[in-house]
């Protein structure tokens, strides 16, 4: 028998039992929609993780912290080891880190709590200053505009990219060269503070302790996107001067040296070296976090999600296939008479099986195609919604649920394969019917 005849017969039988076929196709379509949307979401999530969290060279970086607290990242909760002998990050640490093979550069960073708020000239807004002293010896700052510090003690600032939107500035050039004014904490005693002399009165001291100081600097650059985008970077040595307090008329104290650096950014030679270098850092007693490790965890997490969602979809598909088995078994017993006649006019067993399998495949293709199209549409809708939400939240827009073509085609194929598998048993039953028995009584 010709392929076109199989298809024609299958088409006739399916359209003849319109409602029954429609319900079967619907079940298949629904499970395919579930498959496509769930897969699209977990695929999109995976993609977003790798594209958004891994800008260019960040993968080769490790952030070294003084303790081990942040070293374990897990989504399922993990035991965090308290570290008694917190290692202080100082210049010895920098030297130690630079000694690890595979380390290209280590640049310390220090939080400057003394600087609390800031204003930019000509802009009527005050922001909380998340200032960090940075040694830019190894170009540890990614710039999107402007340039880096001219000297280690220069009163210069590199502004986080995220501020631009809030400042209402379209062009980055408009901010470079602008004066920035920091408001310190009350009773500030560091660089630029006017500390009352020995002969000052008590009330002068009280006043001093109740007033902040103002420090000015110039904006020289804007950071790129990434972990620095919401920070305010200043030269490390100036940060040290800010953190060095005049505690008595004759004595100064370097609090930065006392507290140690808040972190050290380590550039490794390549992303491949990160793991090995990370282990070496941990062995030295420091905490360490790398984008690579975060991505790895996130990817693990999304793999698990993908497996869970995938099995949900497969179970749905399986249920739909059982529907096909049921429908087709019903059809077989209803069509015994027709099977008998086809056999009488010379149809072989495999022709009978073929007629039923083609019917199953037909429903599979139909249900799969409808489902894939609807799933594609649904995931596009989800994507649009998410993008809109992200936009209103000022977050970078990512494709969170895009159904790629291969996924759509793949699910049509999968639905068809499931349908054919579901058709196997009914088809076998149909082929096994004894024509003589069927035709005995007609």
């Amino acid at each position, binding site marked *: *028998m*010709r392929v*076109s*005849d199989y298809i024609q017969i299958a088409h*006739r039988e399916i359209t*003849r039992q319109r409602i029954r076929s429609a319900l079967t196709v619907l079940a298949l379509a629904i499970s395919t929609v579930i498959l496509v949307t769930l897969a699209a979401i977990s695929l999109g999530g995976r993609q977003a993780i790798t594209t958004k969290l891994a800008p260019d060279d960040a993968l080769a970086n490790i952030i070294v912290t003084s303790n081990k607290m942040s070293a374990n990242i897990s989504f399922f909760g993990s035991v965090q080891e308290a570290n008694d002998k917190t290692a202080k990050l100082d210049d010895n640490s920098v030297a130690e880190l630079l000694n690890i093979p595979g380390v290209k550069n280590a640049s310390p960073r220090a939080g400057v709590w003394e600087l609390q708020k800031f204003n930019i000239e000509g802009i009527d807004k005050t922001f909380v200053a998340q200032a960090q002293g940075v040694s830019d010896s190894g170009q540890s700052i990614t710039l999107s505009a402007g340039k880096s510090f001219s000297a280690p003690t220069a009163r210069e600032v590199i502004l986080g990219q995220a501020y631009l939107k809030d400042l209402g500035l379209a062009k980055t050039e408009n901010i470079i060269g602008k004066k920035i004014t920091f408001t310190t904490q009350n009773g500030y005693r560091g660089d630029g503070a006017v500390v009352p002399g020995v002969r000052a009165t008590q009330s002068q001291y009280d006043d001093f302790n109740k007033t902040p100081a103002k420090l000015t600097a110039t904006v020289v650059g804007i950071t790129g996107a990434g972990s620095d985008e919401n920070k305010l970077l200043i030269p490390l040595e100036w940060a040290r001067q800010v953190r060095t307090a005049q505690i008595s008329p004759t004595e100064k104290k370097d609090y930065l040296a006392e507290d140690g650096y808040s972190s050290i950014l380590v550039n490794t030679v390549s992303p491949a070296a990160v793991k090995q270098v990370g282990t070496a850092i941990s062995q030295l007693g420091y905490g360490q976090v790398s984008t690579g490790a975060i991505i790895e965890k996130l990817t693990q997490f999304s793999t698990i999600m993908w497996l869970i969602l995938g099995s949900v979809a497969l179970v749905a598909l399986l249920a739909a296939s059982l529907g096909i088995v049921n429908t087709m078994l019903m059809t077989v017993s209803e069509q015994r008479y*027709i099977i*008998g*006649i*086809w*056999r*009488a*006019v*010379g*149809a*072989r*067993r495999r*022709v009978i099986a073929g007629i039923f399998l083609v019917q199953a495949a037909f429903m599979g293709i139909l249900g799969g195609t409808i489902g894939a199209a609807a799933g594609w549409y649904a995931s596009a809708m989800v994507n649009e919604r998410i993008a809109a939400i992200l936009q209103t939240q000022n977050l970078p827009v990512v494709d969170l649920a895009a159904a790629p073509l291969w996924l759509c085609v793949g699910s049509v194929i999968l639905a068809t394969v499931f349908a054919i598998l579901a058709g196997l048993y009914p088809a076998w039953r149909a082929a096994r019917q*004894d*024509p*003589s028995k069927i*035709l*005995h009584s*007609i």
Partner: protein
Amino acid sequence: MGPVIVLSKVSKTFRVGRERIRAVADVDLSVQKGEILAIVGPSGSGKTTLAHLIGGLSRPDEGSVSAGGQMLRTRDKILSKYRNQKIGFVFQTFGLLPHYSALENVSMPLVVAGMRRRRRRELALKTLAAVGLEKQAKQRAETLSGGQRQRVAIARALVTSPQVIIADEPTGSLDSENGEQIMQLLERLSRIQDITVIFVTHDLTLAKRADRIVHMRDGQLTEADHAR
């Protein structure tokens, strides 16, 4: 000229629970080309079972069926081809697909044979014309009258130019007038196209129009008088 069909020592047994029913027992039969053979006998005597054995719809448990001098092997492929090419079946209740048109019903054996659409349409139309139903070609089988349906069934049996037509009570569902028409049609086919017609009937007057009558009783065959 040798016989078209030869049965030798053919038996068929059915098992119902513990009981064994020997529906056909040690039947020897040979049928000549162009012959009209009537099988008569009481209900349950094994006529239909025998007809199915001759037509390759079922396989004998013992003995053999030969067609055109060759013993029929029992492989599905061979038996199916035999039914498709050498045999045409006609049933008491016509055995048409009700939702198919007359033309499509007649085309069924040609579809199975893998013939191209245009060619099988031509052939099916020609055969429908031969049974006087060219006007009803497009009509669905379920809308045809009983006599018309049986003529469509005969056209379907004829369309592959088989050697043998096996008709199990072909007039059983028809009134006497329509039954007579069907009988005449079968006779004409036998005479003009030299087709062997084997028909099963209860009706002795109908049987008398055959060249030869065989009687069945309890699965066994007894040769009877020649009708003509």
